[in-house]
């Protein structure tokens, strides 16, 4: 009799329990449903952090498990945000335009409403017509489908081209970064149809929910983010627990050998790349309504590099490591860049954390990579008494895993 999924993966149960307790705690401390101890903006920060944890989970799958260092997953994240943002902005503007035209002597025609919406949204970039990419923006179900389809198809097409020509390692990272940069530069243009560097704004106002206060909305989005993270975690744990996870890790360690075992490495890479792109897009679609604004700077390559840093600091190759890394580093970053960290006066100079935080983060990244490659997740191994042997001396055998001199004499 085989054990059940949860008893084979006790960390999943622990994670879900902690997430549930956290969600309950935050709800009880919120303005809308509890003691009002936490400000609404802080609840939004926490909700956004949960979305970042979800995209970090996707990054861990694609990098920590399959060994593909993608510098494009924040682009998929932002694309998801843009797709939901288009509906939010269109529907919200439509409400306003309809209200404004209600005072006119004649009832407004659909054409008038549509023109009004277009000039409201695109006046800022000197346009008065809806570009073709906004064709489906009036419909929530269609735009929700695009949240999944646009990043998914982009990842599928890009991955198919890249993996088929066997681009691997650092070259693949550069290629994904180039894709991200190209996408960001395209969106920066005013005629890209997505309002250039103005981006989409006012996304925190949910159409049809005008009567609901932001206090409540922030908690609702927090719940949705927590639910998405829980689902994503379960799905990811299920994905890597079986033979599929085994093959992914094998591809990371020696993809040529996996080919000779009869597995089509390209197919697996394409699968995991596209799947994680979709997860990232869903996380983005939950993130930006809480952030309220999205612009092309959000998908600059640096965002994806941050994502890799979170996962590395948290500990790649283990799912809870990615979540811990994203939560820990992004919350710390909010604290430091929010100007709340006290300045350090060194006499000859003053360290202002708003400027110095990135240097601290860079240093932490280098130190973790060099001294603690297991990241924060490694602390759990340490607590459980698992230690990775310090292997010194020359190898005794021709294989990398052969005993090292000093081990053999001990």
């Amino acid at each position: 009799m085989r054990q059940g999924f949860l008893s084979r993966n006790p960390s999943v149960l622990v994670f879900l329990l902690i997430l549930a307790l956290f969600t309950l705690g935050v709800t009880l401390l919120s303005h809308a449903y509890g003691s009002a101890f936490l400000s609404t903006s802080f609840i939004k920060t926490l909700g956004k952090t949960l979305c970042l944890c979800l995209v970090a989970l996707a990054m861990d799958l694609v990098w920590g498990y399959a060994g593909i260092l993608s510098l494009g997953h924040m682009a998929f994240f932002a694309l998801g945000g843009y797709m939901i943002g288009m509906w939010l902005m269109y529907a919200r503007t439509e409400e306003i335009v309809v209200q404004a035209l209600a005072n006119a002597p004649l009832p407004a025609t659909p054409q008038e409403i549509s023109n009004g919406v277009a000039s409201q949204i695109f006046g800022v970039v000197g346009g008065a017509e809806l570009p073709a990419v906004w064709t489906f923006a009036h419909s929530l179900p269609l735009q929700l489908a695009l949240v999944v389809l646009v990043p998914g198809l982009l990842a599928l097409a890009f991955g198919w081209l890249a993996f088929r020509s066997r681009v691997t390692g650092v070259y693949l990272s550069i290629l994904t970064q180039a894709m991200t940069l190209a996408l960001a530069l395209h969106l920066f243009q005013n005629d890209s149809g997505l309002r250039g560097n103005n981006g989409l704004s006012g996304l925190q106002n949910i159409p049809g929910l005008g009567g609901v206060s932001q206090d409540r909305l922030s908690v609702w989005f927090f719940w949705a983010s927590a639910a998405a993270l829980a689902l994503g975690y379960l799905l990811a744990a299920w994905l890597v627990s079986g033979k599929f996870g085994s093959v992914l890790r094998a591809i990371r360690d020696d993809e040529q050998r996996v080919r000779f075992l009869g597995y089509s490495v390209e197919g697996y890479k394409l699968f995991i790349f596209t799947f994680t792109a979709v997860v990232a897009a869903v996380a983005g679609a939950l993130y930006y309504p809480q952030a309220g604004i999205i612009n092309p700077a959000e998908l600059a390559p640096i965002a994806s590099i941050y994502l890799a840093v979170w996962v590395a600091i948290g500990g790649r190759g283990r799912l809870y490591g990615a979540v811990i890394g994203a939560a820990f580093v992004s919350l710390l970053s909010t604290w430091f860049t929010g100007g709340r960290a006290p300045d350090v006066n060194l006499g000859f100079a003053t360290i202002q954390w708003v400027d110095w935080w990135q240097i601290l983060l860079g240093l932490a990244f280098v130190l973790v990579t060099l001294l603690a490659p297991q990241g924060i997740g490694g602390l759990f191994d340490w607590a459980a008494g698992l230690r990775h042997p310090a292997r010194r001396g020359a190898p005794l055998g021709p294989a990398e895993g052969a005993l090292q001199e000093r081990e053999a004499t001990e």
Partner: protein
Amino acid sequence: MSALLEVSGVSVTFDGFRAINNLSFNIGAQELRAIIGPNGAGKTTFMDIVTGKTRPDEGSVTFGERSVSLLALSESRIAQEGIGRKFQRPTVFEDQTVFDNLMMALKKPRSPFSVLFFRPSGRDAARVEELAAEVGLGDHLARKSGELSHGQKQWLEIGMLLAQEPRLLLVDEPAAGMTLAEREHTTALLVEMAKTRAVVVVEHDMEFVRRLNCKVTVLHEGSVLAEGSLDHVTKNPAVIEVYLGRG
């Protein structure tokens, strides 16, 4: 007897260097064959061509009763057709347990979706245990394969090849870095495996080849120089000159 693998007129050039030059030979369905030759004779390139890693410039390679051409297939498709390859260095997945390594190699559908929904049945687990016992790793199933000794990794890799159930097995210098006792065990395993499938061994060590007691093909500058029993080819003056003479 019809051949399992038929290589005919194959040539391949790397940057002007002719690694394989009009190479032709056949291997039967249940045959043990040793391939010897000096460095640069094209032994490894030959294996790369058969397993799909290198595409030849000309010639044909066909496999099986239906004479499937291997040249149009990817590495993974060739492996699925039933060709297994063992590298000189043991390449097992060190981060994973012996059980996971063997389970991955077990002959099952290989597409991402079927693997995603695959959950091992009791029979699969029993087969893995049986294979592990066969290569002397029955007590080590739960260990990470990175912890195994060099010799044990070699056995694990042979176990993985057996799990793949290949019809043709290509083995690159199986005795490298082994003790005398381990060599004898390896010889016995190879001879045993060749009873039910074709096994091609690339080897430098003449003593080892003698112990295999099988037909020998001598490669030189990318083509067959001589073929026959070891005693037969070692008497061939051309062989003595290019290979044994350097001794």
